[in-house]
């Protein structure tokens, strides 16, 4: 098998909150152009890892290499401007701004307004929110907010997309839609996608590679079917047999 390219090289990443070791020397490589999953029991450090990758939190130590550059210590907007975009576990759309304004807010200032508007229109079409373009974000259903957040994260055409629990609170039809969009991004546009998710169906059926965290440490990685059988993973989720 040909060596796959690495999109994100995470080396020995650490973040302690007082005595709590949220992320404790985490090391893994996200393959380029694939959909990968990051799983683990509640409190295993998945969201903290996301926040470290995107600059929302400052890492205590460790490196994250993206295109050869260490992005630890960059501000969130600097990480974003390098082509890494994200969504949040609990949606963070702008509630008193319209759907269209939510979209436009994430456009790069380097992109001319006319182009930014067109791109916003296309993406709203892509996630079927065009009819709601003049509605306040806060008036959308939770599932629609998830779609809006997803579309908003794509405004700058990022190379790497981090999705924090895209399936949570989204009904099946909408979820399938969302997954179609994700596959479309990966297959047709060669994007790299990293998903944090509790819904095992999503992870097992849609990810090519899975990383498992427990107590801030990576305890396993591999193909979904191997992860399912992995003793350490089973123990982390269900306790000692």
């Amino acid at each position, binding site marked *: 098998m040909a060596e796959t390219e690495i999109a994100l090289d995470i080396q020995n990443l650490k973040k302690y909150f007082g005595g709590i070791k949220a992320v404790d020397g985490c090391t893994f490589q996200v393959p380029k152009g694939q959909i990968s999953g990051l799983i683990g029991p509640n409190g295993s450090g998945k969201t903290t890892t996301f926040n470290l990758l995107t600059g929302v939190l400052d890492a205590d130590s460790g490196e994250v290499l993206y295109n050869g550059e260490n992005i630890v210590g960059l501000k969130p907007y600097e990480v974003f401007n390098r082509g890494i975009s994200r969504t949040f576990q609990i949606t963070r759309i702008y509630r008193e701004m319209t759907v269209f304004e939510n979209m436009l807010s994430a456009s790069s200032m380097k992109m001319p307004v006319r182009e930014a508007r067109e791109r916003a229109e296309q993406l709203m079409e892509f996630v079927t929110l065009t009819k709601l373009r*003049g509605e306040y974000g806060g008036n959308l259903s939770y599932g629609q907010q998830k779609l809006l957040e997803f579309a908003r994260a794509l405004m700058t055409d990022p190379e790497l997309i981090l999705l924090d629990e895209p399936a949570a609170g989204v009904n099946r039809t909408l979820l399938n839609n969302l997954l179609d969009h994700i596959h479309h991004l990966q297959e047709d546009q060669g994007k790299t996608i990293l998903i944090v998710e509790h819904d095992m169906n999503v992870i097992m059926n849609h990810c090519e590679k899975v990383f498992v965290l427990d107590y801030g440490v990576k305890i396993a990685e591999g193909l979904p079917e191997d992860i399912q059988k992995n003793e350490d993973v089973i123990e982390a989720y269900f306790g000692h047999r």
Partner: protein
Amino acid sequence: MAQNEHLRNFGMLAILIIVLSVLPPNLNLYQRSVIMFTMMYVVLALSWNIISGYTGYVSFGHVMFYGIGSYATAILVVDYGWHWIPTLFVGVLVSFVISLCIGFPVLRLKGPYFAIAMLGAAEGTRVVATVWDSFTHGGEGIGLPNVENSFETYFAMLVVMLVTIVVSYWVGHSRFGIRLNAIREDEIAAESLGINSTFYKLSAFALSAIFPAAAGGIQAYKVLYIDPETEFFILVTIYMKLFAMFGGKGTVIGPILGTFILYIVQEITWVKFPTAHLIAFGVFIVLVARFMPRGLMGFAIDKGWARKGMVH
């Protein structure tokens, strides 16, 4: 937004400007003053609106920039013999520099902490103006040369108001303004989606600081006597905030409409009921806060008379 919507808005502005330009000779001195002060409060309300309405950083100390402007004009005219017009630019410049110095640390605070820090900054400036006798004439204040200036100050205020409206209109219809809104709605999300919030907050703060300085300078030349108590009076901040909120913060028309209605209501009640007017005014504010929390523009949006959002 459709091109003709901009045309309509600028048409309305042109009508307002023409009416305000042809009115003065037909008014008496008192009426001219009322309209001049109304325009002044339009400037103040729109300025407050840039940092507090669009960006969500509610300032309780904006009077400081107005006071800095009025002191710049008074000191330069009285002690240095300047013509009053160029002093306005000095006031604007000083205000701009001070806004950056204060904004950089203070804009790291959020919500009530920011509000209180700004209140403290304004009070601090008042104290400096009171104790720095050799420069500001201290608590006794500064008397300016008594000349008939009601036309000059009226038209100067009209120009400053026009500039403030045009800049506010640009903020309210641009991606710059949308980004300020995004910071107001969720600063962490905004940062994560490419917005350098420090830069945008400071820009908004500086923009909101320069127009009050010009307005304060004109006002000083108009009233002929200033002292720290009146120039850094917290009621000025409360009025600008109130007028903006009554009209609808985070919009361009809101603060203009709010000021024209409330300032004139305030003036009439003050004349008719010199003691009871603040009570009546207070009751009115409570009613507005209870039944129209998003102001006239919010009400218009709920009724379907105006569209949601600022960029369409």
